[in-house]
């Protein structure tokens, strides 16, 4: 095969974007990958394990991150955003804003000394604000590229013209306060793939969680927060403790469809919660065999490969009780133990149960910034503001030459995201190769 003269532009460096990039790069096509965050990895990097095999998430992801970073056909623009796109299928051009991270990427070896000395403590976004990081920080431990970033909004130098301790600390001279945002123009783009993933409802609207006391009750967490707590590299080193009293929870209630399948919040089903909840409950049980798990659900949605037997295992081996009852509200007792009222379908009785911790399976929503990105790309969104795809062809968008994959067009699990990513890559390759 001749080496094509056109390249691909991939927007979003989560597992979908990564898979699409690797496939195209392995086909010998030049790939430009743009990631908004300081490192690629996306949501999957935040997960502790993955269902239904309970593989360690970062462990199976990390080799892909490295591969992406080293691949000679992939140019990675992290901490960057696509600002402008012109042209049409087979011949797009794009402008990318590469934000200054005030670190020389080729000099930094991620030794962490600067962060140790930085006096500014900031809520850590990657850890869902469950712990603090410094103003100069590594986005996450295993992140790629493996370099630090200075948070301009919080850094004392930028806010108060003071400090610069990091600069003095760095033995590699990697700090560069004079670095400027850059606009990079890329021509000759044959095809574009949009894979910017998703946000969760709490990212955009905490209001809808108020019936569950989220933000008010310390023992009510969202599923992604809980996932970070379960993670060895998370804020509690994988040993789950309640924020109210530092005690290990012995009874956890997982509430499904928080915002999903609702005419008041989001009408759709978020597709993945039944399964990841089971996984989270299993992992919690692995940490503590005395744990009682309760999952409150409407319909168990487990259609994927091995999912039904995964639920069975949860029930039989991990002390998970599945209770068909959607929970309306949570209260707490004087010890801040959440109290849940639910219906026992067998008897029609309404019961109260006191638990130690509540985990909310909050609904998936379109990624922040999708409206703007859609405008930049000239593609349509559907009623929910996910990317609109034509009937049955889930990797196509409303515009020729622009493809999509993963949760940016509909909530889905990792295997489907990966399959779609490869699918989008195939379609992009057709355009790039002029087929």
């Amino acid at each position: 095969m001749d080496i094509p003269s056109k390249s691909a532009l991939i927007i979003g460096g989560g597992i979908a974007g990564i898979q699409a990039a690797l496939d195209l790069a392995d086909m010998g096509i030049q790939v430009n990958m743009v990631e908004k965050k300081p490192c690629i990895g996306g949501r999957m990097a935040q997960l502790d394990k993955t269902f239904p095999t309970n593989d360690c998430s970062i462990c199976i992801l990390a080799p892909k991150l490295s591969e992406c970073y080293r691949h000679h056909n992939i140019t990675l623009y992290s901490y960057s955003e696509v600002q402008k796109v012109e042209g049409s299928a087979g011949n797009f051009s794009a402008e990318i804003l590469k934000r200054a991270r005030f670190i020389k990427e080729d000099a930094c070896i991620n030794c962490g000394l600067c962060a140790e000395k930085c006096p500014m403590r900031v809520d850590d976004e990657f850890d869902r604000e469950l712990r603090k990081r410094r103003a100069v920080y590594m986005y996450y431990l295993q992140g790629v590229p493996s370099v630090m970033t200075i948070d301009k909004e919080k850094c004392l130098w930028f806010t108060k013209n003071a400090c610069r301790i990091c600069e003095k600390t760095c033995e590699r001279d990697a700090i560069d306060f004079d670095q400027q945002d850059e606009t990079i123009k890329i021509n000759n783009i044959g095809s574009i793939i949009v894979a910017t993933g998703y946000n969760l409802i709490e990212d955009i609207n905490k209001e809808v969680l108020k019936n569950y006391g989220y933000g008010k009750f310390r023992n009510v967490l969202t599923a992604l927060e809980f996932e970070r707590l379960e993670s060895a590299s998370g804020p509690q080193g994988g040993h789950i403790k309640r924020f109210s009293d530092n005690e290990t929870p012995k009874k956890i209630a997982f509430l499904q469809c928080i915002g999903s399948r609702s005419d008041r919040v989001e009408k759709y089903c978020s597709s993945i919660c039944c399964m990841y909840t089971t996984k989270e409950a299993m992992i919690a049980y692995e940490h503590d065999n005395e744990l009682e798990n309760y999952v409150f659900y409407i319909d168990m949605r487990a259609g994927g490969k091995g999912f039904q037997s995964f639920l069975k295992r949860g029930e039989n081996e991990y002390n998970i009780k599945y209770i068909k009852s959607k929970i309306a509200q949570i209260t707490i007792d004087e010890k801040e133990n959440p109290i849940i009222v639910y219906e026992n379908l067998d008897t029609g009785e309404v019961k109260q149960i006191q638990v130690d911790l509540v985990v909310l399976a909050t609904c998936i929503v379109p990624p922040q910034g999708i409206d703007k990105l859609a405008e930049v790309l000239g593609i349509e969104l559907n009623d929910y503001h996910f990317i609109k795809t034509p009937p049955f062809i889930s990797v196509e968008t409303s515009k020729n030459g622009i493809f999509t994959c993963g949760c940016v067009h509909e909530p889905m699990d990792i295997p489907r995201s990966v399959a779609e990513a490869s699918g989008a890559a195939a379609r992009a390759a057709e355009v790039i190769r002029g087929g």
Partner: protein
Amino acid sequence: MSYDLFLGCVIPARLPYLEASARKVFEKLGIILKDVDGFSCCPDPTGIELIDHKTWLALGARNLSLCNNNGGVISFCSGCVETLKGVNYFINKDITVKKEVNKYLQKVGKVYEGNTAVKHFAEVLYENLDKVKETVEKPLEGFKVAVHYGCHYLRPSEIIEWDDPFEPVTVDEIVEALGAESVDYDLKLECCGNPLDKSDKDLSLQMIDNKLDAIQKAGANCVVVVCPACYQQYEFNQRELNKKNGTEYNLPIFYLSELVALAFGFKPQELGLNFHRVRPNALFENVGFKV
């Protein structure tokens, strides 16, 4: 500012002292409430509506057809407000309902188009909160008030369209504007149980027992309500509960207008506070409220 006044049944015909306090408060605020002749029962959304929905619509629409004030109609009763807002809601939602209702009204020579604005008196107080604050002469210091919103003041929110159905603030803010403290308590938004009085007295008492228990635990020294059904449930059933269950509740129950009136400097006597079964005198003494 002026409103047509819809009194309903319970307040004027059973609890006139509540009406007295409310009229005084609005007069003091310079808000004109215009009495209108010819109103029937609203009718009761927890009574007549359950007997016959269309009768409920027809009577409600007839009442609304009598209002011609630009400011709309105001009521001191949450039940009346829910009915009147509800009738508007159903008439405006479905043209066939509107037609059917007007077919009935035609028989009595009336017509209703569905555009009379309906307000709860607490809504109007809240909209004039600054003025309420300014008018306070005797701040209610030491009053630890458990605010009972009651169901129909808030829900269904699609009909009521006022305040948050699960995290309401309006009455709390009015209470605080009077210099009193609003005490948070468990079960704050739960029903008082009054409507069950008609079908299962024991259940009804159990519900109010749970509420009073939570209010007492939270350290409140009085309760404020905005609905005469809730008022009766709290006021009249407190003693019954004590007799039946051996509880010792002794919580003064105020109508919101009464609290406002007290803060505005009206005397308990002119407000008819002596008609209360749980007398507030001890409370006034304890908190040093001079009457």
